[in-house]
């Protein structure tokens, strides 16, 4: 049953991701006072790119070639393990927060490596920026998640989500602050303005993406929208598991799907409004802004030690 659920999650995430990025584009167009294309545009884009020729820099090695596939594979693995419809993880082995963080780091590492590999000035710079964003945001994620893990007594997302869902947390204030810190860190991880450092269009001309074309680019685009859905689901699974099925039967299963869809839709709508109302952070000042987020996670840890 849980294998079936894991496969279902992968299918849903893969199919829904372009819809969500398409809807984000539509919101963006509306805020721009443009008409915009409909929510299915990203499916058409991916389909079109799949039929296009692939062009690769002749100075690039196998790393650049392997990266889109690897990136996609990591997202598939993540989509298996993160609880979406149920509170517990469908594949408990993959349901550990540390596993998730390292899987994300793996995709990030290859993303940056491939960017440097293409020996394009813009792509390389984008790759370096991606790494720096990782260095700045991962400690915050870890600290916030450790605080939550200590509260729940487990690093398994299912157990953590269950603790939050049933209200069995010993330090509610600390948990709340951890949720805030983790939400902010997730937003940075989504790579949206003001934190879209690696692809910053006007600064780096899409950064590493500029070196990809055809099916690779299609796969990369798909994987990147999948990553956004996964990161949001990750946050929801731990800190907002309400509506997800605790025990699996047909009713709770349906409710779980509807609840997940609603939560993800709301989260992305909020993100879309935020990303279209701000200017990109000045790259030099990125560190000072991530420090603020880190501060929140430290605060949550302090509250945890005090026990509130």
């Amino acid at each position, binding site marked *: 049953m849980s294998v079936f659920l894991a496969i279902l999650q992968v299918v849903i995430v893969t199919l829904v991701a372009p819809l969500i990025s398409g809807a984000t584009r539509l919101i963006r167009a509306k805020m721009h006072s443009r008409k915009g294309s409909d929510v299915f545009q990203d499916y058409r884009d991916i389909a079109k790119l799949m039929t296009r020729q692939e062009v690769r820099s002749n100075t690039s090695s196998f790393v650049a070639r392997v990266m889109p596939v690897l990136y996609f594979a990591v997202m598939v693995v993540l989509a298996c393990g993160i609880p979406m419809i149920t509170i517990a993880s469908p594949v408990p082995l993959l349901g550990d927060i540390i596993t998730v963080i390292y899987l994300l780091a793996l995709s990030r590492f290859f993303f940056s490596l491939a960017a440097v590999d293409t020996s394009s000035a813009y792509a390389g710079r984008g790759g370096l920026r991606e790494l720096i964003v990782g260095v700045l945001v991962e400690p915050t994620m870890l600290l916030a998640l450790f605080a939550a893990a200590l509260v729940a007594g487990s690093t398994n997302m299912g157990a953590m989500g269950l603790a939050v869902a049933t209200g069995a947390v010993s330090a509610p204030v600390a948990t709340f602050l951890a949720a805030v810190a983790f939400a902010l860190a997730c937003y940075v991880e989504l790579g949206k303005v003001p934190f*879209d450092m690696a692809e910053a269009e006007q600064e780096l001309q899409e950064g590493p993406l500029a070196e990809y074309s055809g099916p690779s680019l299609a796969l990369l685009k798909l994987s990147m929208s999948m990553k956004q859905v996964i990161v949001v689901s990750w946050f929801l699974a731990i800190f907002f598991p309400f509506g997800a099925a605790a025990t699996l039967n047909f009713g709770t299963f349906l409710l779980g799907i509807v609840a997940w869809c609603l939560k993800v839709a709301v989260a992305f709508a909020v993100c879309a409004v935020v990303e279209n109302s701000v200017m990109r952070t000045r790259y030099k000042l990125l560190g000072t802004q991530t420090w603020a987020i880190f501060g929140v996670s430290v605060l949550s840890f302090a509250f945890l030690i005090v026990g509130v």
Partner: protein
Amino acid sequence: MSPKKSPADLTGAAAPSPARGYERICESHVEAVRAAIPGAIQDVAWQTDDQVTVTVNIDTLPDVVAFLYYKRDGWLPMMVGNDERSLCGAYAVYYILSMEGQDRGWVVVRGEVDPVTREWPSVTPLVPACVWSEREVRDMFGLVPVGLPDKRRLVLPDDWPDGLYPLRKDAMDYRFRPEPVSDLESYKFLTETHGKETTVMPMGPMHITSDEPGHFRLFVEGETIVDADYRLFYVHRGMEKVAETRLNYDAVTFLADRVCGICGCAHSVAYAEAVERAQHIEVPERAQWIRAICLEVERLHSHLLNIGLVCHYAGFDTGFMQFFRVREKAMDLAEKLTGARKTYGLNVIGGVRRDILKEQRQDTIRIVRELRAEVRELVDVLMTTPNFESRTKGVGRLDPQIARDYSNVGPLVRGSGFDRDVRFVHPFDGYKALDPSRFKAASQASCDVQGRTLVRIQEFYDSLDMIEALLDGMPEGPILTEGWTYTPHVFGIGATEAPRGEDVHWAMVGDNQKCYRWRAKAATYSNWPTLRFMLRGNTVADAALIIGSLDPCYSCTDRVTVVDVHDGATKTITKDQLETYCVDRTHSPLLDD
């Protein structure tokens, strides 16, 4: 609401008058040169009341220009080369100085260059503002500025043959296209990195943030720009050559429109003024007012574009699109006044082609009010947008001394603490009538991107007020002067304040109803050379924003795609189809099949 009388803010600036103790405008400068550099001046002639040309001994030329520039508050928009072998047996170089301290006016320093040696002493080592003009004269006339450190081409492409100088009268027909002599770009990018190891980031020739080719090389250390160099003129269109050989002097106003895709009217007014001043044509007052109004309309849409672009470069596309939505109203206004969405096709020598009628007047007043309200709202949004302050403050600093040395213009120089603005320094056309206590050049002392943006915002509001004031006090009467006498081989300077800064045109008409020589200087031409100073020390992330704060010019349209929003059918019209239709006016490509 039908004011016929002149309201309070139209009292007008005092007409320029000579300095105390002198009979003519700019005479004090001429006498100062005579006293400081004895024996330099060979001849003095006034073209108009406020334009004097001083012919000097060519060896003293750098000293005279530097003296006027630094000791007499002169600014140097450009220099002009001219092939006058058929007139006086020599080439001539004209250094145009705008005197902006005491005794305001234009002083032109003229030197004759020997047609055999073709050398003259470069002024650039003393006055850096001459650098681009002197390089251009070397490209176009083959004259050699001795002592100019930069030996590279500026205007001519790398594959242009050596020894062919397009603007010499005996060089080539304007239709002649020489065979390329090289397939490789041989332009050397120069850098002063003071021993630091840098990596090169190319920006362009095509870059996502600019619609026109320009090749920038950023020498970076990590994210920090150590130095930058750039190559432009990929789209040099040879307009001056075309104007001199193909068009009559009156048609050049329409060509001057096309110098720029945004501030065409400013160029066309500047050209018209140059000829009108040289020929002593009195332009009717009503035409002068109409020109000023259209120049301000042009400023409206240009500034909205640039304020929008600031948002775009900083990753705030919502702001960009919203400013563009409002900008459409300014384009509508241009269409109401001139018949075209850009203020094109308005000027002829001696006046304008279209009057502003009652209905257009009312529409203008209505649109001006709407624009004021909507832009105020958007500017509030922009100012409170997160990261606006941190992205623009202290970024792209232009040192006032560098601005002074290079004679920068427009919002760029006004963002560095100067209040240079042709409209107020040398009031022309309808601007003469504006109350100087109410309208002043907007200026900010912060020297950064933010300062330039704030200057543009202030100027936008000022433009709206000016349009209202000018409409209120518009005199009645004709709009075109005809029946003047044509005098060949006299020249004049026309200057306007385009949205990006001062446009200066120098025009000399010939004995064949054509321009003998026309030199058009666009505002950005004065600003490019200082860009490298503004880029140094900033990060790659800010490069686009800094280049954008200069408001460089774009102009390009070679084909059009038409999308039918109702049935979704798209259709692309090729350049050929468009050209054929423009000529024949039959078989519209949109109506086919």
